């Protein structure tokens, strides 16, 4: 059974304090690893797709990386507007169904 585990569940940072969110996955034949941002009361917003180990993607203060067992979302010098829940999901084989983690709730204090 495919599994995706995110840690920590919650993270509090001071503005400018860089950190990383972890997404560990156990899937048979990873096809895609996805990161989303979800603001309270809204649907998840797509951030990145990673396909193979060693791949990296960047967007503003966010950088996503992928290894054969996990993905990291690095947040550099975060700002309060980066506060949100970050979800990761993985797909495998020919499935139409991604497996989601439970998310990391990030709060950045000014």
């Amino acid at each position, binding site marked *: 059974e495919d599994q995706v585990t995110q840690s920590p569940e919650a993270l509090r940072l001071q503005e400018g304090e860089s950190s990383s969110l972890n997404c560990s996955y156990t899937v048979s034949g990873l096809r*895609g690893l*996805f990161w989303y941002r979800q603001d309270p009361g809204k649907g998840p917003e797509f951030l990145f797709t990673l396909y193979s180990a060693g791949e990296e993607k960047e967007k503003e203060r966010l950088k996503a990386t992928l290894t054969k067992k996990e993905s990291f979302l690095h947040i550099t010098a975060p700002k309060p507007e980066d506060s949100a829940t970050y979800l990761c999901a993985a797909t495998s084989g020919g499935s*139409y169904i991604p497996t989601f983690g439970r998310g990391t709730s990030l709060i950045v204090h000014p």
Partner: protein
Amino acid sequence: SQTIHQWPATLVQPVGSPLSLECTVEGTSNPNLYWYRQAAGRGLQLLFYSVGIGQISSEVPQNLSASRPQDRQFILSSKKLLLSDSGFYLCAWTRQGPSTDQPQHFGDGTRLSIL
């Protein structure tokens, strides 16, 4: 560009009443469509998905049903709501075909409260 619309944004219903939530996608043809329920701290639970008109797959046995009467329209229904049906309901779409390398695009959800 593609857009997804869900309505209503919030809904308060009494126990035993019927439910109809609607989701429509614009700007693409024959999308894969999904209904999720999200409970606080419990992640996304897939309820139904559809790869074409009239084709519905159910992931979790429950008090809900789904229909896809048109290519870009997905409806979540219930004949009699239970207290346990409360939650945040999300609709999502991907391009047609196996979505293994495609992200999902979500609507803004419906907050359903059952009294």
